[in-house]
């Protein structure tokens, strides 16, 4: 008998929670989107993200708030919880670490989250509830590989120095995979004479390139996961008196420095990561999810409704002017 009462009690509570949840949703559904952006750390990079996101949010008639987690898991989850109390109805989230996606989701309750900046594991995403907006990292690597194959169409064997970002970063993994797979499928013999994680850092890349040069091995091109590392490698090669003209230096991002390097003839190729379209898509997705709509209409949305992947653009000497 006591058990039954217990079950009844449980049912009552659950249904009460359910109804209250619904009420909550209804409240938010009637109004406009209230976006809370929590991201990895403060600093120019993410602050510029925040300000641009804010603009897009305003353009979409949504309110916008931002919190920097400073690489702390605790800070990030508490920010999310606070924002939930303050009535936010959708999150933009740059995860401090991909591993804490579950924690952030728990903290957010049933509020939808649009992940940006850092990719959560695929199995943590859910159609029209937990989505990830990013550039198609794979495509960046693929573009690099295609450029190399085009330039070295006559070569049967290509020696590549590969400088990668941090080991677990989604950009590192996607870009490297895209590059390697495309090169592998070309059927040419590809030798990675040097391959290491320079962690997006120019100095690291330079030091590594110097060490590589000491081995006396030959390299045909330097491929980096971002522009900074490509520039660092270029500097090392240049200082070692190598003929950098006959080599290819490839980066990703089409950062200001990268574009300058291309314009100066140092670097040969980069891909433009359209941050603005990414932000636009992220805000659009957030607004849609806040009012209970799907993301299918948004450009770049995958069929499974879990991703919005935005294309890169190729940048080389011929079109670098457009990106400076």
């Amino acid at each position, binding site marked *: 008998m006591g058990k039954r009462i217990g079950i009844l009690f449980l049912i009552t509570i659950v249904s009460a929670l359910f109804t209250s949840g619904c009420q909550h949703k209804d409240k938010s559904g009637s109004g406009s989107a209230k976006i809370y952006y929590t991201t990895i750390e403060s600093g120019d990079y993410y602050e510029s993200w925040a300000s641009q996101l804010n603009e897009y949010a305003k353009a979409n008639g949504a309110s916008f708030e931002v919190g920097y987690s400073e690489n702390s898991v605790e800070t990030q989850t508490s920010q999310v919880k606070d924002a939930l109390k303050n009535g936010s109805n959708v999150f933009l989230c740059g995860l401090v670490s991909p591993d804490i996606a579950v924690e952030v989701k728990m903290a957010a309750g049933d509020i939808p989250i649009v992940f940006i900046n850092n990719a959560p594991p695929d199995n943590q995403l859910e159609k029209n509830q937990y989505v990830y907006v990013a550039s198609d990292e794979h495509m960046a690597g693929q573009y690099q590989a295609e450029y190399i194959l085009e330039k070295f169409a006559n070569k049967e064997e290509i020696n590549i120095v590969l400088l990668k970002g941090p080991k*677990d970063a989604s950009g590192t*993994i996607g870009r490297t995979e895209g590059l390697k797979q495309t090169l592998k499928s070309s059927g040419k013999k590809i030798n*990675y*004479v040097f*391959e*290491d994680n320079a962690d997006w850092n120019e100095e690291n890349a330079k030091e590594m390139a110097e*060490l590589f040069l*000491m081995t006396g*091995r030959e390299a045909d091109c330097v491929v980096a996961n971002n522009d900074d590392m490509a520039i660092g490698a270029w500097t090392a090669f240049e200082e070692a008196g190598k003929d950098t003209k006959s080599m290819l230096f490839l980066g990703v991002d089409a950062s200001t420095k990268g574009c300058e390097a291309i314009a100066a003839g140092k670097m040969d190729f980069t891909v433009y990561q359209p941050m603005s379209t990414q932000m636009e898509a992220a805000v659009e997705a957030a607004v849609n999810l806040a009012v209970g709509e799907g993301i299918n209409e948004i450009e770049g949305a995958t069929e499974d409704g879990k991703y919005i992947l935005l294309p890169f653009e190729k940048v080389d000497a011929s079109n670098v002017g457009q990106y400076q």
Partner: protein
Amino acid sequence: MKKTKPSKKQNKHFISIKTKLLGIILPVMVFIIIILTSLSYYVSKRVVQSDAQRLLTTSVESQASEIEEWLDKNLASFSMAKQAFEWIDLNDKQMQSFLDAYYNFNSNFPDGIYIADMDGRLYNGREGASRSTNTVLRGPDRSGNYINNGNFKGSRQVKDNGIWQFYTTLEGEGTAKIQNGEVYISTESEGTADYSIQFVQPALPVKEGVTYRLSFDAYADEERIIKTGISAPDRDYRRYLEDTTVELTQDKQTFNYEFTMTDIDDTNGRLEFNLGAMGSTAGVHISNVSLIKISETNTFSKLGSADIVQTEWFKDALSRVNMGFTNAYTNENGKQVISACGMLRTNNKGVYVISADLSLDKVSVYVNSFVKMENAESFLVNTKDNTVIASRNTSLISKPLDELDDSFMSKAGERIVQNNLDLMEVDGNMAVFQKVSGTEWVLVSYVPSEIVYRDLNFIRNIMILFGVISTVVLMILIERITHIVIKPVKKLTDIIKTMTEGDFTVSSHTKSNDEIGIMARCVEKFIMAMSSMIASIDGVSDALHSQADNSKDISEQMFYASKEQNNSMQELNNTVEQLSLSVGEIAQSATTLAMLVEETKDDGDGVNCKMKETVTVSKTGKEAMQDVSMAMEDINSSVKKLQSAIDKVGIASEEITNITRVIGNIADETNLLSLNASIEAARAGDAGKGFAVVAMEIGKLAQTSVDSVRNIDNLVLEIKTSVRDVVSQACDSVKNINNSSTLIKNAVDTFDTIFENIEITGSLIQDMMQKVEKVEDVARNVAVVSEEQAASSEEILGSSNILVEQANNLMKNSGTVAKSSENLTASAEELTTQIGIFKIKDN
């Protein structure tokens, strides 16, 4: 017949209610069970399949993360060591002790860390080196000899202490004495081991990487062998110079042996001469013992410099600064390893490569033993070149997947090349792929599908069994239920069937209170009603039968009687006819007599002349009279006969009258019975209809019998009166004839007298004439009477004919009555048989 025909037809297409019910319920039930079973099988299959997938995926994910964690952990410790090397600028010696410290430091990389430079120099840790790094080896003497007192100066007995030492053990007995620049070892008992007698010099310094030469002069009192060697008492007596057999002769010879010290430096080498159990006790002389260094090699290079820069790990290390893993390969010790390697940051002091071999055993353990699914197996593939890193089948390690004979493995390889790492079900295996992050490795875990489906097959078998059993049980149950429900109906059907065949002895008594029970009770009532009715009809029919039998007997008797009567009548008739004929003849004769008398009278007139004629005529007359007399007698007897016949007719008539009276009575009774039967038949309703008809027929016959009897009675009465007339007439005739006869006799007598008196008496003729006249009158009367008699005879004849006719009629009618009686009997019999069909209880 009418009843049996449809029943036969029913039999032809007879399908019992039970069959019909079972025919509908069973297929539906079987169908439902099949549907249910297959549905649950399908659902179970889906569940089992997805469970297996999930389990396999979970397993491979956890394996991959275990491997990853392990690799990361090791990489982290290597990176720490590497960082230490980069931070502390070490000289060669310090570096060596640093590397030595890592030797056997961690079971994952027992060989420790090693560093190589581009010139092929290798620095690696050594076993035990960390414990005796400050070994100081004493030097040799001035001649370079490491043996002390190798030329045996002085003279003394050698004991178990001092520079040279002598030991006996294990039953060995002997002595050693230094004198005259040599040592002489004499043996009394060679003992049981080769070291039973031993001459040694301990504490010899032996340096790693140095090649030494041992030399000495020796001879024996007899040809024999001894053994020599350099051992390490501190290192389990391992041999630096292996035990060597030396063959001694009686002539002094010089022996030289070289060896290279491969172990690390040892201050306590031990030169041994063993003279124990080798088959001889001959004394041995040894002199000029020396151990000199021939050459010393670089201690750091196990491998040639060219070899090192060509090794897998060295080449791989040059491609990175942060430590990373090479492919799996077999190292110089023949072990399957992967190396974590990278370049050292040396501030431009040159390229140094740091590397450590990780035994693949541990990876194999993760790959082979951490499979969390029963019967599943895994193998680890390096996607760089699609080679196997770890597998339960160790022969596959380092081999490319596409070169393997195993088609499953090659297909898995294809999938890896295509970078399609979704679940794969091929060649009877279910396989999942998992990238080991931080590496280019893919862990493939697979399980034979049949294992996955084994439980499913079990479930399927159980389900089929359950389905079959439940079908059978339900079949039996339904059959039984139907049987029980239908049983009273079947019983009732049998009862009705029996009833249809006329057997009402059955009983449909039941306790059931349902519709069937009501039906049974109604039938029971019907049976009882029918039984009582049939019983009453049976009684009536029996009575009718016996009556009909009686009536038949009587009518038969009557028939025979009337037949007899008829015959009698015929006879009577014949008699009457004869009588009539006789009377006619009498009449004729009387007429003739009258005519003759007239003629006589006429002739009498002519008395004289005619006397003669008279005499002849008289003669003739006399004869005629005799004839007449005879005829008269005949008539007399005929009449008498007639009389008696008529008397008989009278008696017969009387009997007929009696019989007809009996028939009349019977017919009346029959009529009454038929009336009763009709009433009973009417009561029996349709069943009695046939019987009513019979009863009516019987009634009619009885009526006809009565009518016939009445006719017969009348006829017999008429016959009686006629006979009585005939009798009286006949009596008259008899009287008359008797009179005539007397007269005729008289006439004859007269004739005789006449005839006798003619000749004498003429006168008498007159009298005679008168008398003739009288005769004439009489003759005339006779004629008249005869004629009258004849007429009467005719009348009798007519009556007799009518009597015969009536008798015939009577006979015919009697036959009809008999026949009717027969019919009646037949009808009664049929009635009895018909009633006999119905069986009722004897109450």
